[in-house]
């Protein structure tokens, strides 16, 4: 009996030593500086949002809806999360070109925006949206819990939703200089039966939202790290 108690004590001491030697997971908020050094007094114009479909493809209704929804989403993020001062839309503003790269070379266009509404910055974008409706079988590794051996099995994989490819630029309207350029891709999963409904196209897209906000204001990214306690 006494021997068992001593053994138990030794095990407990050893266990506590192991625990104290180990590391512990903690959460840290890593602070990131914004891409653009703004002071918050800038007048920001949002637009134009251009549609740039892939080569050989025509503009479809999903592209038009995506561009409209993205503009609403962008304005909401910039006003609510980045707290920028946004200027109202210029209804009669017609970009002379539908290609963003070409439009960026047209400094008169950006200067015209400034003359119209005293904008300091213009946040413009081109968007390409693709409806993915793919389903098929793929082979994946599988370790059997019975015998621990690795087998291969066929798995049905469905990939349905909207795939976005967005080029966002921030232009200084006074000079037409591009201050920042950000290429963002994201994927909005949708069930197959909802692919025809072009609603909530930008809801809960955290990657996109995080990247957009990070251009204008500081942000914190939550991460986990292991830290030794002694």
């Amino acid at each position, binding site marked *: 009996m006494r021997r068992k108690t001593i053994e138990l004590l030794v095990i407990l001491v*050893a266990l506590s*030593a*192991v625990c*104290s*030697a*180990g*590391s512990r997971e*903690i959460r*840290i*908020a*890593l*602070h*990131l500086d914004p891409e653009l050094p703004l002071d918050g007094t800038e007048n920001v114009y949002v637009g134009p949002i251009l549609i740039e479909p892939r080569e050989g493809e025509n503009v479809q209704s999903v592209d038009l809806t995506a561009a409209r929804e993205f503009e609403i989403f962008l304005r909401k993020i910039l006003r609510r999360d980045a707290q920028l001062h946004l200027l109202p839309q210029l209804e009669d503003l017609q970009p002379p070109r539908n290609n963003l790269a070409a439009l960026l070379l047209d400094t008169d266009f950006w200067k015209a925006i400034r003359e119209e509404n005293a904008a300091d910055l213009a946040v413009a974008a081109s968007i390409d949206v693709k409806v993915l409706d793919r389903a098929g079988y793929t082979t994946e590794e599988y370790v059997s819990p019975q015998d621990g051996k690795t087998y291969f099995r066929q798995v049905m994989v469905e990939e349905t939703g909207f795939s976005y490819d967005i080029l966002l630029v921030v232009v200084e309207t006074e000079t037409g200089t591009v201050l920042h350029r950000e*290429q963002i891709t994201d994927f909005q999963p949708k069930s197959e039966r909802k692919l025809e409904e072009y609603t909530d196209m930008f809801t809960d897209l*955290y*990657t996109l939202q995080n*990247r957009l906000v*990070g251009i204008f204001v500081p942000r914190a*990214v*939550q*991460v*986990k*790290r*292991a*830290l*030794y*306690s*002694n």
Partner: protein
Amino acid sequence: MLAATISTGVAAAGNPDAKEASAEMKWGFKAARRGYWQEALLRFEHANELTPNQPRILNNIAVAQEANGLFEMALLTYQEGLTLEPNNNALRRNYMRFQEFYASYIAPPETAAEEGGEDAPEDN
């Protein structure tokens, strides 16, 4: 691990520097848990001065450097720690997570693309 702990304990018992370093690590850990990362970094660095080339101390320094926004220094400290002990699990895991974060948020897009960096999930 038990042997390492016992040997560390024995070393700490006989070596005043090791004993002080161990105390600094404890205080640094407590400061870090409360979010006082500047103090944590100072204590971990002091522990490193007292007992240099300890991967566990370097791990804590690297994490504190990250928390203080010293990302480039953290990268070098992780690498230094892994050179000393490539099989240290905590260090390796932290380094992998840090690399993912670094490629996604800090490194220029060209570099990130070359390294195969993708957008990191929230908890990396």
